[in-house]
C-alpha cells in the first residue's frame, strides 16, 4: 500500500499551544508577590514573608484545579436543528457538533493541515477506496463507555444508511454499493468504499464518532464538551466532558473551561450590546460595520483574520429557456460582454466602501486564503472602463449619446436582483450600477425577499443578473462539484444541462471529474487550477470580493487565536481559559 500516511506524535502538536497558554496563566500570581514584598516595612516583613511562602506553596499546589473554571458565553444566531452529529445541516448545530464531537482526524483550523485525534495514525489506499485507522487506547465516552473500533464501525454504518439522509454522509457516497468496515485488530479498522472518495481523510473531520453501546446515544460524546441542558429558544449549556482524553503539556486534563453557554440570539444588535456589557465573551462572525464601531472604542477586542473562504459574486442568466428577450440572452451568453462587465467593476471600491476594507477583491472560485488550492497565477480583474469598452466594441456594441447599444441598436439595460436582507449586497449592486453607468450600461437594482429571489433564480429563471454569495466551509474543491458540473442544480448561470452547452463547460466537467477521480493531490491541483483559469477567462460568475473573517473576543478570554475557518474564534475551545476576574464573577 503506497498511499499517503499521516502519523504524528500527538503530544508535540498539543504541547506547543498549551505551553504558551499555561505559562501566561501561571506567571500572573508571581509578579504581585515580588512587588508587594519589596515595598513593605521591615517590621511586617517576617509575617508577610511567611504569608508569601504560603501563597507560593498554594500556587504550586492548585494549578490543576485553578486551570479549569469559568463559563464561556457566546451566541448562536439560530436554534440548533439537531443534536444528532450525523444529521447536522445548520450553523448552530455545526458549532455544537464541533465542541462536543470527537473525530478520528481533525483539520487544524490554523494550519489547514490534518492532524490525528482519536486515530493515532491512518493510512489511505492508493486507489482512494480504503482508509485504515489505528485508534487510541483507553479513551472513554462522556458517560464512561469505552471507545473501540466497534464504535467507528457503528458510526460509519449509521452515517451511510440511506434512510438517515445525512448530508455529511452524502460527501462519502462515491458509487453504488455498500460501505463496509473490516476490523483488523483491537486498534485497527479499515473502512472500504465501493469507489474512490476524493479527499477521503479530510472528510473525517466532519464525522464525530458515536457510541455503539451507550444508552445515551448522541448524548455520549468524545469531544471536550457535552450537552448538559437545552432550553428551546433560549440557550444550550455545554459542560466539560470529564472523560475527555487530551491533556496539556503539563499533563493537565483538557478542556480548561467548566462550561460553555450558547445563548440563542438572532439579533446582532442585541448580541453586540451584550458583548459590550461583558455578558458575552465572543462574537464568532462580525459584520464590517459592527467591527468598525467596536474597533473605534475597543480595538483590543476585534480581530481581522484576513480574507475568508466566502465569496460574493454576480452572474448573468444564461438559461436558454429563460423568459428574457433573445437579444439580452445573446449579451449574457457572450464571453466578451461578461468580461467587459467584470473589467468595468471597481472591486477595490467594493472592498473599501462596502466592507470598510475588510474584504479583498476576489479572483475566482477559490479564495487566496485557501493556501493549497488557490491558483496563484491568477489576479483580481483590474478596474478599467476603457478596456471594458474596447472589449464591447469588438463584440459589436457601440456608444450612442452615452448609451451603450448592441449591433441591432438595442440599448444595454438589465436588472440585478439580490436579497433585501443583505445591505452589503445591495450596496455593491448600487456601486456596480454606477460603474456600469460609466460605460453606458443602465442597471436597475431590485431587492427581493429571499424566497422570491430563490424561486426566480432557481426555478422560474425569471431574472437577468443576480448578486449572491457562497459560504465555503470546505477547503477541498470536491465540495464545489455541485456548482461546476454543467448538470448540477447549483450551476447557477445555466443549471441542469443535459449535455454541456459550451466547449468550456464541457472542459470544466472533464477537469472536475478528473480531479475527483485522482488520488494524487498534485494532479488534482493541476486540474482544478485549469478550472480556475477557465472560470476567470469565461466569467460565468463575476467574482467580486472575499470577505475577511471578522470576530470579537473579550479580554477575559485567554488563548484565543481567531482564524478564517469555522469556528473562527473557538476552534481551540479546549485550550481557552477565562481570566480570574471573569471566573470569579460567574
Amino acid at each position, binding site marked *: 500500500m503506497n498511499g499517503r500516511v499521516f502519523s504524528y506524535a500527538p503530544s508535540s502538536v498539543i504541547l506547543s499551544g498549551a505551553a504558551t497558554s499555561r505559562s501566561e496563566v501561571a506567571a500572573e500570581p508571581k509578579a504581585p508577590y515580588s512587588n508587594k514584598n519589596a515595598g513593605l516595612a521591615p517590621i511586617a516583613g517576617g509575617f508577610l514573608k511567611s504569608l508569601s511562602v504560603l501563597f507560593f506553596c498554594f500556587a504550586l499546589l492548585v494549578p490543576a484545579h485553578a486551570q479549569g473554571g469559568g463559563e464561556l458565553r457566546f451566541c448562536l444566531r439560530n436554534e440548533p436543528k439537531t443534536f444528532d452529529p450525523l444529521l447536522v445541516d445548520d450553523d448552530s448545530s455545526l458549532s455544537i457538533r464541533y465542541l462536543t464531537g470527537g473525530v478520528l482526524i481533525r483539520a487544524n483550523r490554523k494550519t489547514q493541515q490534518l492532524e490525528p485525534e482519536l486515530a493515532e495514525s491512518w493510512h489511505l489506499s492508493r486507489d482512494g477506496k480504503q482508509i485504515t485507522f489505528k485508534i487510541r487506547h483507553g479513551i472513554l465516552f462522556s458517560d464512561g463507555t469505552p471507545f473501540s473500533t466497534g464504535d467507528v464501525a457503528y458510526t460509519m454504518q449509521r452515517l451511510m444508511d440511506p434512510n438517515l439522509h445525512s448530508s455529511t454522509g452524502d460527501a462519502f457516497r462515491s458509487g453504488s454499493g455498500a460501505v463496509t468496515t473490516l476490523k483488523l485488530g483491537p486498534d485497527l479498522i479499515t473502512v472500504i468504499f465501493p469507489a474512490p472518495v476524493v479527499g477521503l481523510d479530510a472528510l473525517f473531520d466532519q464525522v464525530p464518532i458515536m457510541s455503539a453501546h451507550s444508552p445515551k446515544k448522541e448524548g455520549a460524546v468524545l469531544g471536550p464538551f457535552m450537552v448538559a441542558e437545552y432550553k428551546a429558544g433560549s440557550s444550550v449549556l455545554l459542560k466539560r466532558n470529564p472523560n475527555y482524553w487530551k491533556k496539556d503539556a503539563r499533563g493537565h486534563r483538557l478542556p480548561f473551561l467548566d462550561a460553555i453557554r450558547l445563548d440563542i440570539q438572532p439579533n*446582532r*444588535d442585541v448580541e*453586540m*450590546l451584550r458583548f459590550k456589557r461583558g455578558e458575552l465573551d465572543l462574537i464568532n462572525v462580525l459584520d464590517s*460595520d*459592527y467591527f468598525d*464601531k467596536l474597533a473605534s472604542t475597543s480595538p483590543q477586542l476585534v480581530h481581522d483574520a484576513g480574507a475568508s473562504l466566502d465569496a460574493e459574486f454576480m452572474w448573468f442568466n444564461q438559461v436558454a429557456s429563460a423568459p428574457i428577450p433573445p437579444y439580452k440572452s445573446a449579451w449574457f451568453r457572450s464571453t466578451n460582454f461578461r468580461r467587459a462587465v467584470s473589467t468595468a467593476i471597481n472591486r477595490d*471600491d467594493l472592498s473599501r*466602501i*462596502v466592507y470598510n476594507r475588510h474584504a479583498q477583491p476576489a479572483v475566482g472560485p477559490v479564495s487566496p486564503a485557501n493556501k493549497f488550492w488557490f491558483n496563484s497565477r491568477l489576479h483580481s480583474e483590474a478596474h478599467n472602463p476603457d478596456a471594458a469598452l474596447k472589449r464591447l466594441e469588438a463584440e459589436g456594441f457601440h456608444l450612442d449619446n452615452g448609451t451603450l447599444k448592441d449591433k441591432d441598436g438595442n440599448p444595454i*439595460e*438589465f*436588472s440585478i*436582483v439580490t436579497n*433585501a*436582507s443583505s*445591505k452589503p449586497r*445591495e*450596496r455593491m*449592486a*448600487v*456601486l456596480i*450600477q*454606477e460603474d456600469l453607468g460609466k460605460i453606458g450600461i443602465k442597471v*436597475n*437594482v*431590485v*431587492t*427581493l*425577499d429571499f424566497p*422570491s429571489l430563490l424561486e426566480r433564480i432557481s426555478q422560474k429563471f*425569471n*431574472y*437577468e443578473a443576480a448578486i449572491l454569495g457562497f459560504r465555503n466551509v470546505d477547503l477541498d474543491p470536491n465540495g464545489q462539484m455541485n456548482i461546476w458540473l454543467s448538470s448540477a442544480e447549483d450551476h447557477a448561470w445555466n443549471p441542469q444541462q443535459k449535455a454541456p452547452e459550451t466547449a468550456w463547460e464541457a472542459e470544466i466537467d472533464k477537469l472536475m471529474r478528473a480531479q475527483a477521480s485522482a488520488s494524487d493531490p498534485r494532479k488534482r491541483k493541476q486540474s482544478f487550477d485549469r478550472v480556475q483559469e477557465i472560470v476567470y477567462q469565461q466569467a460565468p460568475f463575476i467574482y467580486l470580493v472575499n470577505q475577511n473573517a471578522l470576530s470579537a473576543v473579550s479580554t477575559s478570554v485567554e488563548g484565543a487565536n481567531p482564524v478564517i475557518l469555522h469556528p473562527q474564534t473557538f476552534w481551540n475551545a479546549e485550550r481557552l481559559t477565562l481570566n480570574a476576574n471573569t471566573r470569579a464573577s460567574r
Partner: protein
Amino acid sequence: MNAARKVACVVLLAVCVVSLAADWLAPAGFAKQFREVPGSPPSHQHLLGTDEIGRDRFARVLYGTRISLLLAPAAALVSTFLAALVGGLAGYLGGIWLRLATSFTDLFLSLPWLFLLITVRALLPLNVSPLLSVMITFFILGLLGWAASARVLSTSADSLRNSDFVLQARASGLDGPRLFFVHVLPNLKPVLYAQFWISIPVFILSEANLGILGLGVAEPLPSWGSLLRELEGLVSFREEPWRMVPLVLLIVVLTSFQLALSNEELTA
C-alpha cells in the same frame, strides 16, 4: 383655525416647498457617489454628511421627502377612490350589497397586508426604472389600502341612505345615480376628505416599513423608508445625530398631518 393647526400647515407647506426646491438646494443630486468620502460627517460640501456609499445625505433627504410627499397623496387618492366606490356604493345600495361589501372588506382587512405587499411586489417585472418602480410601489399601496376607509364610508353612506332628506328625495321621484351624486356623495365629502388625509401618513409609514425591509423604492432613488434604513445598527443617538434627520422629519410631518386635520375631519 387654531394655532396648532396653523403651525402644522405652515410646517407641511415649508417641507413641501423645500423638497420641491431640491434641485437648487442640493445640486449634488441624490445618486452621485462621492466615493472618496463614504459615511462622512456634516461639512460645507455635504450638510448632513454622506451615506455609506458616499451619496450626499442632504440631497437624499430632500429628494426622498419629495417622493414620499408627492406619491403618498397619490396613493391616498387611489385608495380613497376605491373606498368610495366599494364602501360608498354598498352603503348607498344597502341590503345584500352592503352585506357583501362588508364581508369582502372584512376579509381584505384580515389579510396580513405587509406580506401581501411583499408578495405583490415580488411578482412585478424586474426591469423597470427606479421612478416607475416607486410609482408602482405607491400604486400598490393605494390598491391594497382602501379597506379600512371603505368600512367607514359604507357606514356613513348607510346612515345617509336612511336620512330624512334622502327619503324625501326618493319620495320626490329622484333615484339611481342622480340621487347618489347629487345628494349622497356631497354629504360624504367630509368623510372622504378625512379618509384621504388620514391615509397619507399611513402610506408614508407603509412605504417606510417596506423601505426598512429593503423592499421599498428601488435604488438609487431615495425615500423616507430607504433613509430610515440607515438607522439600522445605530446603537446610540449621540454617535451620529445627523443620521436621525429623516426620522425627525418623518415624525414632524406625520404629527403635522394629524394637527392639520380639523376636529370635524378627525371625528368623521
